[in-house]
């Protein structure tokens, strides 16, 4: 727990109320989807934290909460010491300049009716960066060149549908960089791209960390990509962190049963021997509606025992410089 982290998230929670039918109103019952439930972590500059999990685990919602595209229903987020939840108007706008996001679908990253130049200039105009058009164009040109998107003028004159997926995603990252943010959320930026084109994006993010000291939350469902890019990995299940720690510690020595299952089911490429003995977990991911107390993975966990069904496990430090939320690791002294 360092003293003034760039980002400090405490018990973050996000519940989506389900549409109430007349029946529910009468019975006073309200259903809610527990998308994100008491997530806590910290981030420094020049660091990439990967959020890894299957669909519905809340990783995307968490990312959107961090840049205030969603309103948290609980807990708080401190960005550079400043509480993000209460930000409105001008303060919110200056926060947005320092915390940016790139999305999964590169083909829809830009307004189809505007040329890329117009979209990039708009980003600068929103925050009044650069005194005049010329200065703005210089800024754009320099960031474009740094991302290897040359000849710059040719790209700026194009419409979004005249670009390949890889190029669109790189220009989307350029747009974010124009605001010189300190923090970036990358929400599955490569999962819609062909494998051969992903390297450019991943390397672009690595260079932002190394050269610009950027703090990046990288969201993915692919552990191999997480291993390549992240310094730390957090595995999420049904809205909660189940294991978080240095990338190699999580990949090579997973402790939480779900993390082990996720790793063992990640398909090897070529003749690599499988990572861990296959942990066979049955059933499907349950829907996170009206979640009962106890460990949410209990229903599918091969090592479940009675305490798991009663008490929700908290993230506890384990040997390997990791935090794991599982009763196997926080046994009361026998």
């Amino acid at each position, binding site marked *: 727990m360092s003293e003034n982290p760039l980002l400090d998230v405490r018990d973050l929670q996000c519940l989506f109320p389900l549409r109430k039918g007349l029946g529910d109103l009468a019975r006073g019952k309200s259903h809610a989807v527990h998308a994100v439930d008491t997530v806590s972590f910290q981030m420094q500059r020049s660091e990439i934290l990967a959020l890894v999990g299957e669909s519905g685990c809340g990783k995307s919602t968490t990312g959107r909460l961090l840049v205030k595209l969603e309103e948290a229903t609980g807990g708080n987020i401190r960005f550079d010491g400043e509480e993000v939840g209460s930000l409105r108007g001008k303060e919110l706008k200056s926060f947005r300049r320092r915390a940016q996001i790139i999305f999964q679908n590169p083909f829809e990253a830009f307004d189809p009716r505007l040329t890329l130049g117009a979209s990039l200039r708009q980003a600068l105009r929103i925050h009044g960066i650069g005194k005049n058009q010329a200065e703005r164009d210089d800024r754009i040109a320099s960031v474009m*060149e740094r991302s290897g998107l040359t000849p710059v003028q040719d790209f700026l004159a194009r419409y979004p549908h005249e670009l390949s997926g890889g190029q669109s995603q790189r220009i989307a990252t350029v747009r974010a960089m124009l605001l010189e943010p300190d923090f970036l959320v990358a929400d599955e930026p490569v999962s819609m791209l062909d494998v051969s084109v992903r390297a450019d994006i991943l390397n672009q993010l690595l260079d932002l960390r190394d050269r610009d000291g950027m703090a990046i939350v990288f969201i993915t469902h692919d552990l191999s990509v997480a291993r390549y890019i992240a310094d730390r990995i957090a595995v999420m299940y049904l809205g909660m962190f189940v294991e978080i720690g240095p990338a190699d510690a999580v990949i090579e020595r997973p402790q939480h049963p779900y993390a082990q299952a996720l790793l063992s089911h990640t398909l090897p490429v070529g003749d690599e021997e499988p990572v861990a003995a296959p942990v066979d977990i049955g059933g499907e991911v349950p829907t996170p509606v009206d979640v009962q107390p106890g460990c949410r993975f209990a229903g599918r966990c091969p090592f479940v025992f009675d305490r798991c069904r009663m008490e929700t496990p908290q993230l506890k430090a384990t040997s390997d410089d990791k935090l794991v939320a599982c009763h196997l690791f926080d046994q009361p002294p026998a």
Partner: protein
Amino acid sequence: MAESLLTNEAAVLPTAPRRESRIRAFWRPFVASRMGPIGLGILICVALCALLAGVIAPDGPFKLGAPRLIGPGEQGHLLGTDHLGRDMLAQLVYGARVSLTIGLVAASISLFVGVVIGSVAGYFGGWVDLVLSRLTDMFLIIPAFFLIIVVVATLGSGIGYVMVVIGLTAWPTSARLMRAQTLSLRERTFIQALRALGESGPRILFRHIVPNGIQPLIANASLDIASAILIEAGLSFIGLGDPNKATWGRMIFDGRTTILTAWWASVLPGIAIIVTVLGFYLVGDGISYVLSPRSRKVSK
């Protein structure tokens, strides 16, 4: 400057984009729709007649004196005269002006109101959406014609009133379409990105969501113009049209009693309505053909 980030050479551009100009990109599929150009041709003729009404019939539609109910082509009257001896062609061309103005003005009112209500309801959601959607449903459900009759009967049947009233009762379909478009566009990546960049709500709504969402409403607008013309004709037929304007509906009403002996008095204005309204439908069909995915290339 720092050497380029990527170890390999600059990204190779896909082959230079052969970019069709925006107009040609619209025109090529529009012509391919076959129905579109026919409709456009019809509308151009009708518009010409309306514009040149002063030239075609310098004395205006109500000039009396000619013999009553003479057939088309007789005594210099290309399309004959009505029961008061007024020239049919003159009334038709001046009637075209009324129909086109009412159609265009009513449709633009309904398009404007529909876009504003639909986009605001779709974008802001919550109770705003609830109230506006109930309002839309109400107008959608009540029989518009009866409401128009009531309002015109109470407030007056000048052409201005008629246009505004038809416009103010035709907007729900556009509102519903625009709301659906806004709801889907609001979740699209480029709108989320603009929100994250700090762009203001209203500017996102009116500079990005409306321009991208309005295309299907344009195709729908042609249907609104057509129905406005039909409604106005109905009003005139039952005597609620603008009394001092020559309207096709009134011509049909006037010629009703003598239809067996002088068929042209009622039949010709009817055909004029059909041709004009058909023209708008066909143009609408052409526009929606341009917008539909079918006309795009098959990839993969």
